[in-house]
């Protein structure tokens, strides 16, 4: 190991007051992956934090240069296994653009439904761990995790895997719906819609949750724009920006949905954004099931991509994932660059966890839905 001890530099820019103390939070697993937050505290107040990330860095972008286009899918979706479809899709979009492959309409609809199911699953994971457990609310943890499993079972039926689907190779999804899938999914949505009302009563309207999350970790609209945060964090600060609307991919152009935004910018408004997004996802899946076109689901895609660069993007559960793929006329990409929501939202951690109580830190951290593995890649 090097002789340099890790020093919190955001704090080291300021003179260290004698009354302050440095505390290392992590790098054990705080619920979503290994990360260390170096906190400088003054009594019960956090003066500054320095996020020390990279504990789960595995060089995805480097590995991608050694694998061919299809073999890249499984390892590029691993960084955020609870949101695998979106990571997979974000990588496949630019590859398809380079290869000039157009996915048939039915394939687009299946991908869209799978992606929205994944959004619900990911938000339920957030609700269970990052919102529930971090605020000490064990009931919502049990409820949300239980209901998430119902979606996982359906996803397993559709794709063959519970979390790591590798469902969207270039050209379209791997499988069509099994017979009876649509009815089961529609039934589950009816059940889940009723459950959301109960979640609201148990969690969102719970005075303890409101007292802990409201007014905590306020990110103003102009700061959110300046810091370039994305996803529910951005929309919780009142910026109406969603890639599904801004640059529709898949079947989103045919479907009607709202972009939930809240002006307050605090942890509670980020909670609300995710709750409303789950309701929107239910509506999107229902519309897509009704409009489902017939026909082939996928086209054959070449194994080689020509020279050139393409940029694709999707709206994942944690925000926009932008992937740039540079091809060089071979079966392996010359360069893959992944810009995902967690890495972009990382800058909000030192910005928001400042001049707050130590006890507010898990609430703010949880409200950002930061996923360390996705950020580290």
């Amino acid at each position, binding site marked *: 190991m090097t002789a340099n001890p890790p020093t919190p530099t955001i704090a080291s820019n300021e003179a260290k007051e004698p009354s302050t103390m440095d505390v290392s939070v992590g790098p054990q697993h705080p619920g979503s992956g290994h990360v260390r937050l170096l906190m400088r505290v003054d009594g019960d107040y956090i003066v500054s934090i320095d996020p020390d990330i*990279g504990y789960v860095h595995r060089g995805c972008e480097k590995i991608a240069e050694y694998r061919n286009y299809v073999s890249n899918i499984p390892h590029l979706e691993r960084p955020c296994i609870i949101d695998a479809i979106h990571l997979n899709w974000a990588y496949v979009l630019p590859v398809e653009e380079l290869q000039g492959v157009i996915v048939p309409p039915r394939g687009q609809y299946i991908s869209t439904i799978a992606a929205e199911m994944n959004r619900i699953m990911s938000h339920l994971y957030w609700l269970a761990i990052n919102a529930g457990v971090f605020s000490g609310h064990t009931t919502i943890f049990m409820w949300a995790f239980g209901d998430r499993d119902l979606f996982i079972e359906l996803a397993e039926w559709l794709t063959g895997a519970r979390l790591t689907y590798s469902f969207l190779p270039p050209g379209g999804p791997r499988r069509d719906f099994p017979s009876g899938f649509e009815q089961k999914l529609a039934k589950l949505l009816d059940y889940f819609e009723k459950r959301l009302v109960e979640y609201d009563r148990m969690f969102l309207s719970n005075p303890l949750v409101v007292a802990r999350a409201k007014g905590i970790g306020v990110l103003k609209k102009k700061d959110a*724009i300046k810091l370039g945060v994305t996803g529910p964090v951005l929309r919780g600060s009142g910026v109406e*920006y969603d890639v599904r609307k801004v*640059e529709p991919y898949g079947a989103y152009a045919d479907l009607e949905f709202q972009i939930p935004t809240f002006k307050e910018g605090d942890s509670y408004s980020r909670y609300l954004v995710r709750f409303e997004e789950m309701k929107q996802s239910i509506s999107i899946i229902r519309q897509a099931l009704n409009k489902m076109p017939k026909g082939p689901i996928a086209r054959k895609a070449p194994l080689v991509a020509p020279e050139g660069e393409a*940029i694709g993007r999707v709206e994942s559960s944690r925000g926009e994932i932008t992937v740039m793929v540079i091809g060089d006329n071979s079966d*392996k990409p010359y360069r893959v660059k992944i810009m995902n929501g967690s*890495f972009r939202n990382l*800058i909000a951690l030192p910005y928001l966890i400042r001049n707050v109580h130590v006890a507010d830190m898990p609430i703010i951290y949880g409200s950002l839905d930061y996923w360390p593995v996705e950020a580290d890649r």
Partner: protein
Amino acid sequence: MSQKSTSREETIIEKAKSRFPEYIKETKIDNNRRVTISFDKDHVQEIAKWMRDDIGFDHLKGIAGVDYPTHKKLEVLYLAGSFSKPEIQDIIVTLKAELPKDAPTISSVVSIWESAHFHEREAFEMFGINFEGHPDLRKLLTLDNWDGPPPMLKDIKFPEMGQR
């Protein structure tokens, strides 16, 4: 839609060319609302400031380094987008600068786009690009005891992963 978006992209390029006639080297429009502007690396701050203040690209989505060992150059790509201007929200502008491989140095844009903070740190670590003026340029993702060359350079090979 395509007619409209093409004209918007061309407007950005025309504005850039008339504002910085001598710095802009090459421009390109890709089919999918993507604009690429290659420019002289010494003027990154001027162009970034103009992009933010006059055109409305208020945030960076990421900074990508690309290594071209046969040309002995590195490229640094800034992917900029806009939240505040709905009419250009769907456009991604890629600002591209070439750096010599032996001394890859470019001015930091953190003072213009604060969102560049961690992206520049990552590019510094992975490609060894020195961003002059960055407030806190240090390693981010690799191990504390990693003292090898920047791992994303093409001459760093990992034979156990296969042929490239």
